[in-house]
């Protein structure tokens, strides 16, 4: 129980609440309910929350699954620095955003869900969690030429590497164990050029 990262769950909840807000807002504006301007607000708040919550933060231990295409929003969020890193700010922001949507029936569920998400963020903030962006790993280019070590010094047949390097090591299956040192040819090799 002690190692649970609440922020990840709060992130999922906030994303889902954002979607609920958007849907409720669409229903309210399209149906032209009374106070339909709350519906418009709800759509806007929902979109903002979705964009803010889309990039998943990095887990403390282990690898994190990225959401598809999240690296663009990660760049934007990184610009804001502590505003997006701190979960206290996020908790209160979500709480504040959720209140106006509570005035309309169609969006009231969005309010409830976002409020729950904000309380989980508060819990995460109290436990000292922070939003860490997932950095893309720099691709290592294999350098051609560095992998080719010294070419073999003896002509074939050659015993495998271990027999040449460490004569004391036990032989691998199928090794030709003639001698530990460099190959000694029984017959001197003469290059015959025809």
């Amino acid at each position: 129980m002690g190692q649970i990262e609440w922020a990840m769950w709060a992130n999922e909840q906030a994303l889902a609440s954002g979607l609920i807000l958007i849907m409720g807002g669409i229903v309210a504006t399209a149906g032209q309910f009374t106070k339909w301007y709350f519906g418009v607000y709800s759509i806007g708040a929902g979109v903002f929350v979705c964009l803010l919550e889309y990039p998943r933060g990095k887990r403390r231990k282990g690898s994190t699954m990225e959401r598809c295409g999240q690296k663009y929003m990660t760049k934007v969020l990184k610009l804001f620095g502590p505003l997006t890193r701190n979960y206290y700010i996020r908790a209160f922001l979500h709480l504040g955003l959720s209140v106006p949507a509570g005035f309309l029936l169609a969006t009231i569920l969005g309010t409830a869900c976002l409020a729950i998400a904000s309380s989980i963020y508060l819990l995460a903030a109290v436990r000292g969690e922070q939003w860490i962006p997932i950095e893309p790993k720099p691709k290592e280019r294999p350098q051609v030429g560095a992998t080719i070590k010294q070419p073999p010094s003896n002509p074939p047949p050659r015993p495998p590497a271990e027999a040449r390097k460490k004569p004391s090591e036990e032989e691998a299956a199928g090794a030709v164990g003639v001698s530990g040192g460099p190959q000694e040819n029984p017959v001197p090799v003469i290059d015959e050029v025809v």
Partner: protein
Amino acid sequence: MAVSWRNWLANEGVKHLCLFIWLSLNVLLFWKAFLLYNQGPEYHYLHQMLGLGLCLSRASASVLNLNCSLILLPVCRTLLAYLRGSQKVPSRRTRRLLDKSRTFHITCGVTICIFSGVHVAAHLVNALNFSVNYSEDFAELNAARYRDEDPRKLLFTTVPGLTGVGMVLVLFLMITASTYAIRVSNYDIFWYTHNLFFVFYMLLMLHVSGGLLKYQANLDTHPPGCINPNGTHYQHVYLPDHGSEHFHESFPGGPSKPDELTQNRSVNICMEEPRFQANFPQTWLWISGPLCLYCAERLYRCIRSNKPVTIISVISHPSDVMEIRMIKENFKARPGQYIILHCPSVSALENHPFTLTMCPTETKATFGVHLKIVGDWTGFGPLQEVCKASEQSSESGGVIMGEMRESVKTLKQANICGQGPVKSALLLELRHEVEFALYMSHLAGITQIGKDKDQEADMNKEGGSTIITVDRRCTFRSLGLCTREREALSEDREACLLFTSIISRAPEKLYIDGPFGSPFEESLNYEVSLCVAGGIGVTPFASILNTLLDDWKPYKLRRLYFIWVCRNIQSFRWFADLLCVLHNKFWQENRPDYVNIQLYLSQTDGIQKIIGEKYQALNSRLFIGRPRWKLLFDEIAKCNRGKTVGVFCCGPNSISKTLHKLSNQNNPYGTRFEYNKESFS
């Protein structure tokens, strides 16, 4: 390669058929309910008041009824394990359906999610319509109490409204915690929130008892749309924009010539006022059965797992793997099944599933699991201490005190710090106590001593395995180390914990829940089986191999292809002994082709490696690099023409997908490959 229809049908056919049946049931229920509320005469007035929202909400409610009841069935794991093993489900095809229980559970869950959304949206519109279309004539039909009552009040002051909001919040918590990312990273959140299902079902029972939507009970005396001779005309009771407009039509002289009037369908005479009655909550009938079944199963599992197991030995294997061997009364398991471990002293709430690598047989009641040490529950810390401590705590008594003090003194003198060497040294010292087990039990007053032959304390250090075995029969008493000695050990955390737990009164307890079934049990029921394991995924097959070692004749299996892919050469040592012994046994019994072993080392640093000098049979079957599945399948198909081969895979998803695809493909030898897999989390 072309997909072979025969193979595809064998592999996927029944699964897709069941899905189709389930889908049609849902569509049928939705359609029936929709039509009923749209056109049924008993809902005529209600439909006029609420419109499309009524039909959508009731139709989605009936789909929700079905799915809320079906969703509980795939998670009755004990029941499924029983069905798998019993003869009640004779056909292998039907047994293979049980493999998909988790997928079915998720499908029902997603359906509940979607239709709850529809249901909630429709009811919100209904609430609005209730308040806007309020009329005095149908006051009892209306949930609102007066015209233009704030619909939010309707939501929060009625029983269905309040319970509905509660259910939405519970569902929201459950769904957000059930996403793949959360399950993979923080399984605890998923497990704890998913247990809120009980709250959901209780709220659901209350939700349908509200009786908010009523049907008309007296259709014969008051056909809808009829004319009340002395009052309002029921057809045009209200027009929303004009307020309530009543068409007063009075028939002079009362209802004369009733026959003519009743024959004319458009104008009927109402005998009496419409009476409305609440529907009987159908949901109770739908969900009570599965809910009782599931609760009964949980209760049974709770009672069954209440007795702790006795840990016989804890073995440490290379590459961070730990094996625990235990004994429990009346524990029976089939090869391939898994159990759930629960250790309250490590974590009061966490349960973790592990496949059995050794099942209890008639001759030997020991069973075991192999755990890979990752994460904080299995981590090199809590669980290992608990297991080792519970072993050690079995031996104690007055006489050991002296020995222990000696050990402590030796360590202090040597002033060893750090984990590895001290641990082994400590345990080496304690090993001598094993011989005193007899004397200890005499002290503790236990009469019967027995020592299982294969649990001789064996201190071979080959390959880094340190095997400590203890006969755990005695209760233990305090060792009485003084505080100063205890503090001196605090530098080495492991040793300190060990001693502290020995000093403490109660031995640590380990509880198991299970065994539960898995698709790997089927491998013994095919004539030819192909078992592919990736890394630690070899554990279900280890129990199969142990069973074959015990006795292979009673099973249908006649040829087993065992492919094991690992990254690290040391991993093969987990079961190298077992494989060699098995290979030897079949060689002696003149069935050398029964088990065909192929070991693959997928990551290599260029140096040829062998597993160990004494494992010659395995060294010659070790390949470097990844297996080439197509060639393997072709070879198996060629050697087993016309037969049905069961393919079992426990490993990474990439291997599993490749095998699944290959199982569906055509081969020129007429061999059928049946793919069996269960996904974990």
